[in-house]
């Protein structure tokens, strides 16, 4: 996926609840690329160069680890606050 496509995808998938700002997106993409978790391919589209980002094998492993950590964190928060989801 390319940068602009990512911002639009996030917007569409979250029904506009989450807006990924351009100023935040590219620094994150470049950081993940430098860490070797993303790889880049370039193509000429509509007379201009476009960069496509793809997740690497190492990046995918990291994604699974991070999701697990997030899940554990949310579980802990739930235990701590015991929110009443319904009345």
């Amino acid at each position, binding site marked *: 996926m*390319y940068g*602009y496509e990512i911002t639009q995808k996030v917007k569409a998938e979250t029904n506009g609840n989450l807006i990924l700002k*351009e*100023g935040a997106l*590219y*620094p994150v993409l470049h*950081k993940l690329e430098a860490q070797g978790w993303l790889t880049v391919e370039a193509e000429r589209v509509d007379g*201009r160069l476009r*960069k496509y980002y793809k997740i690497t094998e190492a990046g995918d492993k990291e994604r699974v680890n991070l999701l697990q950590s997030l899940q554990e964190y949310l579980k802990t928060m739930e235990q701590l606050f015991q929110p009443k989801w319904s009345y």
Partner: protein
Amino acid sequence: MAQLNQDQIESLYRFTRQHFVVHYDLQTELVDHMASGIERLWEKNDQLTFEQARDREFKKFGVFGFMDVVEKRQKAMNKRYSRLVWKHFIEYMKLPKVAGFILITFLTFLTLKLTSYSEAFFLGTIFTVLAVYIFCLYKARRKVKKVKTDDGKQWMLQDIIYNQGNMGGAIALLPLHFYNILGLNNFHQLSDFWFAILSLVICGLFLFMYIMSVEIPKRAEEYLKDTYPEYKLS
């Protein structure tokens, strides 16, 4: 669907340069992003002029414009460069290259030991290495100048490779500080153990200098192609 023409794309490149994005790799990414955004705006409202649509897209980057993106990109690229230097260094710590490193360290040890009474020899060695280094740097500089003037494009990693290489000069001067700290009077009183440590540190530092000033700049083209898939397409 309305699309940007080549003149408008070129004008977006100029726009990024006016907003302090000097490197072509980042310009390309921002131009495509802005162009996609402008085309999307035109889909919704075809009455917008190119300039109006461009300014609306630019506003989305916030009050600092492209500055934050540039800054973070620089940080990420420096990290990538450090990894590259480290990768080269590790190569020298493995067989067969490590044999050469051990031999040179041993020769340095002998030289230090034998010449510990000769201030002129110690300083002369360091200045000779520095002179060779400055010559290599001069050659590298001329090359990068030529690359820049040929197509007018500046690549961030290329800049880092040639500019960080200059930092090697500071590394080359470090042995002089050992000399300052120890002083000539104490220098010949050192034990073999400390001579060995000193030789190892000096050779390690000069190896870093060699990697940063000679080895990586020599393979700059290869690293640019690896880092930038658009390098070949541009």
